């Protein structure tokens, strides 16, 4: 808060050690804050500084309620009765807008989309900044000493529906990586599968759903990489080979549970973190996806609040090395240390559950 009050235009989290992981935030004239630039730890960049512009924010898609026109004529996007629901993600694109299907920044309003800086904490192990985009949409950013990835703890909900519209919320990361329409998603944590925006490997795609048609399951991570010529870099076989990764920068965004994700514009990554819908999608479940704290959509209790973590890692896109760092992070975050707690004992009292000090010294193996 001291820094926030001091009116500094730029705040830096991290940089514990020279060349260490660091995140720059910038404050607008309105005092609202946005992430600006991410620096990879030197270990990930064979010593040379590796940085990327990074604008991270929370955004939402308004859910389609199904076309009600008498007839669709030759409009291929018209589907009477097809609402966005449990089985179907169908955002409502605003026809005639500059970017008809772009998500809306939460909390943008008149202020241009920054977030309120709720809290800034600096300690010996981690620097943290809590950003609030709306009372129901908050993010806590953590940069910790000797860590290789930015930790993004997001908390979303209850999603407001008093305007009668369902909403589907994403965390979006916009960078200056020249990804040339390509990205990659994991195949259940094993290999990475190349994706090309608005395209399919085995047929010529007629793009009728520019957003949902480019969404893929992300169970561990989604990666972007600078492409050498900015063109399509994925190898024909669908795998992402070292050459395809372009030798520039690679950004990997890691999830703590399966989420839908995509790269809808060069250098951007988005992951869907929560949905709250008001219409059934006519695919058999026969109820809207409207989860509440008391587990019953019609009992008038608050909508569900969901929280989780993403990790954002920047490194050199040199194929094997980049994936080794991404895989090491994936393992650490998906299989963390399991903690169990013994019963408390008064300070100074004898040893409780667990090994006496001598036994614990001797052998920590099991």
């Amino acid at each position, binding site marked *: 808060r001291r820094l926030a009050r001091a009116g500094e235009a730029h705040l830096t989290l991290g940089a514990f050690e020279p060349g260490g992981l660091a995140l720059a935030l910038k404050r607008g004239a309105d005092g609202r804050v946005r992430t600006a630039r991410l620096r990879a730890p030197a270990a990930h960049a064979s010593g040379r500084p590796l940085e990327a512009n990074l604008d991270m924010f929370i955004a939402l898609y308004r859910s389609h309620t199904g076309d009600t026109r008498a007839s669709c004529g030759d409009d291929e996007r018209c589907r009477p009765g097809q609402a966005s629901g449990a089985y179907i993600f169908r955002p409502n694109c605003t026809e005639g807008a500059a970017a008809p299907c772009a998500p809306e920044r939460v909390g943008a309003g008149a202020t241009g989309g920054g977030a309120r800086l709720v809290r800034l904490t600096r300690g010996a192990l981690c620097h943290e900044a809590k950003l609030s985009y709306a009372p129901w949409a908050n993010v806590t950013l953590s940069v910790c000493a000797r860590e290789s990835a930015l930790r993004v703890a997001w908390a979303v909900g209850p999603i407001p529906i008093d305007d009668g519209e369902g909403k589907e919320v994403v965390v979006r990361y916009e960078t200056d990586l020249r990804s040339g329409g390509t990205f990659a998603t994991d195949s259940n944590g094993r290999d990475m599968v190349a994706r090309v925006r608005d395209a399919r490997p085995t047929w010529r795609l007629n793009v009728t759903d520019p957003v949902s048609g480019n969404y893929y399951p992300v169970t561990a991570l989604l990666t972007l990489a600078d492409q050498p010529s900015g063109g399509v870099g994925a190898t024909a076989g669908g795998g992402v080979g070292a050459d395809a990764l372009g030798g520039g920068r690679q950004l990997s965004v890691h999830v703590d549970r399966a989420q839908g994700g995509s790269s809808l514009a060069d250098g951007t990554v988005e992951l869907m973190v929560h949905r709250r819908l008001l219409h059934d999608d006519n695919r058999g479940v026969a109820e809207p996806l409207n989860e509440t704290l008391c*587990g019953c959509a019609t009992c008038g209790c608050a909508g569900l609040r969901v929280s989780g973590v993403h990790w954002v890692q920047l490194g050199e896109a040199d194929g094997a090395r980049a994936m080794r760092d991404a895989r090491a992070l994936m393992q650490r975050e998906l299989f963390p240390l399991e903690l169990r707690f013994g019963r408390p004992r008064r300070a100074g009292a004898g040893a409780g559950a*667990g090994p006496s000090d001598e036994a614990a010294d001797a052998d920590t193996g099991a």
Partner: protein
Amino acid sequence: APSSARLWLELSVAQHHDAVSGTARQHVTNDYQQRLSEGMAECDALVSRALDAAAARGARARATSARRARGEELSWAPCALNESRCERTFEMANESRVVRVAAYNPLAQPSGEEQLVRIPVPAGSAVSATAAGGASLDVQLVRAEEEAGSNADIALVRVRAVPALGASWFDLSIRPPARSSPGGTKSPDGTNAARTPSGGGGDAHARGAYTRARAR
């Protein structure tokens, strides 16, 4: 004796494509979650016995486990980090106390030289940590998410390397918030205890920080 059989059964039921993808009706989803929760509770008992055995070894382990198998409270209990809640670190909230923490590494490689773990503690507490053998571990306190409705801080502890498929132990010393002492990283008696500036004192339980409605 506790076993993982129940969780195997409930996970098998939850392989239904609507369970895996979250597209079942609300009441069916509630049932999946209740079954998984009950299966995991039984696994907590199994993990607790395994840690007892690893900690105590030999005859004493069997005696300890046998005595505890007869429905006594778990000697090793988990925390709910996503709710910023941890019964064991919140017990005896008005006293200085020590909680022994077991850290198990589920990977087949050592856990790297150090790793940060996050542990909920009552807001405003002074916290320090010592590894087995008495070496002091780095600790920092950060605020928990207020929206979760909890009155907790999160203790970040840098834990030393844990062997592959192995466990190690450390002690967490927690002192209740001092009534008047100013914030800062050194506690009044100079020990290397981390404490947040906010002086959220008092007994977290007394203020009903953890009311949890059991919905059947």
